[in-house]
């Protein structure tokens, strides 16, 4: 396969295959660094705060939250949508970029997929805890029972159950199938018997024969085909939670594609946040290069601009529709008591990503990191604005109210953040953070030394 010389190499340094294996497996060997311990201690204490908040919620009920009659959804649904959105980058990278033959995805897909799975787990926590009685959570599944009680199939909240569990299952299988050859490599390099046995078991007896590879690639491709529509479906259904209602600010037809775009936007921001730290900490700068970061930043501009156009479209149509409730909601968002949240959202999501039009900023790692944090914050506030500011002043002015989260709600959110980072830190210790086999597949055509080996 010919690659034009004007393209930047995807892997820096003159690597050969064994060097790639060594570099990528290095973070798994030996004892973790003190930064890792500090990180996990911090993450675990955050998770502990979350555990306490969960305990309070379960034993005293949802009353311990700041919700009221008017504002029935607050931080919980905001966090839920935020986490689900973050969970979009992994499968987008693996499935859609695979179908578009974007080979730079090989360095980032593994960790992005792991991040996806963890984020979906964090997301799923919020609807469950909002039910108040966690032990009865299995009621959300439709199953035949003697009381003839069924779930409400007309409700988009139930569609969420199906969409997210399907997405989680497919992402998990996809991630694991991709891991199998690499686990085989880890097994072969394992130093102790126990490690060899565990990784040997996890690798499903991978031998690397041509037959195994052929099947592995076929399965990956089929899964990519299945996962591609799932990337769209999950956040489409999440948007239906809002858009099927008749609440001004929620009911608008642009929601499905706009939510999907916003999800990919926030997902990539979180991938950037994580990988910029990871590449530095694990010495993987030659695999996750500035070129990769630039490519991700381009996706940030694209999806960020789509989101920006959607905001403006919504605002314009709110006026154009002549619907006074709709117009009120939007004016109230921008200039009402929650205006601060609205303008944080606008600044972080619409203005800061536009800085990436400058190549210098796009390729600047520190600025990229800062902007990615901005986007994470902005996308959280987007959901907060949609959920809370649409609800707090409803059709009946006598029931207008304000919402402040209680410490328990903050605890739940911080707890999921803690869980997220704990699991990610564990992930980088037990599995290769970069898909070794896939990176090797592009080494020949896109490694830095390709120009020596290739002649016309």
């Amino acid at each position, binding site marked *: 396969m010919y690659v034009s010389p004007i393209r930047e190499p995807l892997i820096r340094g003159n690597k050969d295959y064994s060097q790639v294996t060594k570099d990528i497996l290095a973070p798994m060997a030996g004892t973790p660094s003190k930064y890792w311990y500090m990180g996990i201690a911090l993450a675990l204490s955050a998770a502990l705060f979350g555990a306490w908040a969960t305990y309070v919620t379960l034993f005293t009920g949802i009353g311990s939250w700041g919700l009221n009659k008017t504002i029935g959804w607050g931080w919980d649904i905001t966090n839920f949508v935020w986490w689900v959105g973050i969970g979009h980058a992994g499968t987008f990278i693996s499935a859609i970029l695979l*179908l578009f033959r974007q080979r730079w995805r090989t360095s980032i897909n593994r960790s992005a997929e792991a991040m996806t799975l963890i984020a979906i787990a964090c997301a799923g926590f919020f609807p469950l805890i909002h039910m108040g009685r966690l032990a009865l959570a299995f009621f959300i599944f439709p199953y035949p029972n003697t009381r003839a009680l069924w779930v409400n199939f007309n409700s988009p909240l139930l569609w969420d159950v199906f969409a997210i569990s399907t997405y989680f299952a497919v992402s998990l299988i996809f991630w694991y199938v991709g891991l199998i050859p690499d686990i085989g490599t880890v097994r072969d390099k394992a130093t102790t018997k126990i490690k060899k046995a565990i990784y040997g078991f996890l690798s499903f007896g991978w031998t690397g024969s041509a037959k195994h590879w052929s099947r592995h690639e076929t399965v990956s*491709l089929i899964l990519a085909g299945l996962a591609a529509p799932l990337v769209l479906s999950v956040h489409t259904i999440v948007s239906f939670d809002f858009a099927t209602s008749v609440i001004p600010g929620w009911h608008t037809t642009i929601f499905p594609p706009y939510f999907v775009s916003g999800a990919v936007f926030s997902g990539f921001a979180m991938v950037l946040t994580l990988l910029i730290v990871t590449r530095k900490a694990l010495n993987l700068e030659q695999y996750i290069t500035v070129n990769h970061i630039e490519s991700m930043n381009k996706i940030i501009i694209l999806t960020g601009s*789509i989101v920006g156009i959607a905001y403006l479209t919504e605002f314009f149509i709110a006026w154009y529709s*002549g619907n006074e409730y709709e117009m009120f909601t939007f004016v109230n968002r921008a200039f009402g008591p929650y205006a601060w949240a609205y303008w944080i959202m606008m600044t972080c999501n619409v203005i800061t990503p536009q800085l990436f039009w400058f190549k210098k900023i796009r390729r600047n790692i520190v600025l990229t990191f800062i902007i990615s944090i901005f986007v994470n914050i902005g996308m959280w506030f987007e959901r907060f604005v949609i959920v809370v500011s649409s609800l707090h002043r409803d059709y009946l002015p006598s029931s207008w109210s304000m919402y402040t989260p209680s410490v328990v709600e903050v605890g739940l959110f911080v707890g999921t953040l803690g869980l997220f980072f704990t699991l990610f830190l564990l992930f980088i210790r037990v599995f290769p953070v970069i898909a070794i086999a896939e990176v090797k597949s592009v080494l020949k055509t896109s490694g830095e030394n390709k120009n020596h080996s290739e002649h016309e």
Partner: protein
Amino acid sequence: MVSIGLIALAYGFFAGLGGERISANILLNNYYFLGMGLIGLFFVAVHAIAESGWQVSVQRIGEAMSTFIPVAGVLMLLFFAFGGLHSIYHWTHPEHMDEILLNKAPYLNVPFFYIRFFIYFIVWSLLAWYIRKSSRNLDSLNDISYFHKLRKFSAIFIVFYAISSVMSSWDWLMSIDAHWFSTLYGWYVFMSMLASGVAMIIIILYILKRNGYMTHINNEHIHDLGKYLFGFSIFWAYLWFSQYMLIWYANIPEETVYYSERMLHFKPLFIANAIVNLAFPLLLLMTRNSKRVFWSLIPVAVIVFIGHWIDLYQLIMPGAVGGEKAGIGFLEIGLTIGYVGLFFLVVFYSLTKAPLAPKNHPFYKESMDYHTNY
């Protein structure tokens, strides 16, 4: 073919089919083929900024399609200026204004309508011209600086088009049903254009290859175009469903009125639209091999081309003509044939102006040397 179109138009006048129906047909075809031109340009521009390699081989087709943009602009201007505006958009009649329309008057008024019209067409045409020129200079002068110019103009076009495609669809299509609104509308119309535009690229490629040109195109390129046709058709259906389902579910009269008109007076076409444009590409292009050969790809491309014409018919006719007077007869078919003729005339003339294979493009060799398993 152009003469058939003219005869059909003349027939429309003399058979007394009514000014509204004639106007609506002109708008329909003009918009449809303008969309083809814009998608040709969009196709080139988006691949230029995405640094796509394979697309370089078919780039000339997109560039040639974009030369239809100014032609469509002039025709549309003539059409609006000579009565089309009044016969289609009832917000232009002061006596029909009600409270809701008066509210919209700051946006929906004739002078501002024309201002927007000129901005869209001038910027589109200029950028089309610059993009085409950079691409041709890149080839003939073999100077890499034109490659960067091509990318710069492409980026400007994408940004401008992202806004103007949405706004122009409000102006020319959504304001036909002036009371009705939908936030998704612009993207929906764009997706419809994208699916039919890709179908048109495939059709033009087929005609060129049939006549012995474009010998550098192999099955891999056809496969990629086939994947686009497949994917965009599904994405179009996704947007169709999103808009319909949300309006159906919320059941708010101001919104459902739009669909109820279509279900009442245009039921066969309404159903056909959704089925033809999804089911055919989905089922016929599902397998790998059907996307790689013309004998299966061309029928689907033609179906999609006709299907999205029906889609546009759905968008325009119920509001502009109404259930009693609309129909599909010699006027509709003949005028469309006329526009196809005119479009091909312009596009194939433009194709003769530059070598079909941009051999000096930095990605040309990449485009010739790849194969894909999926």
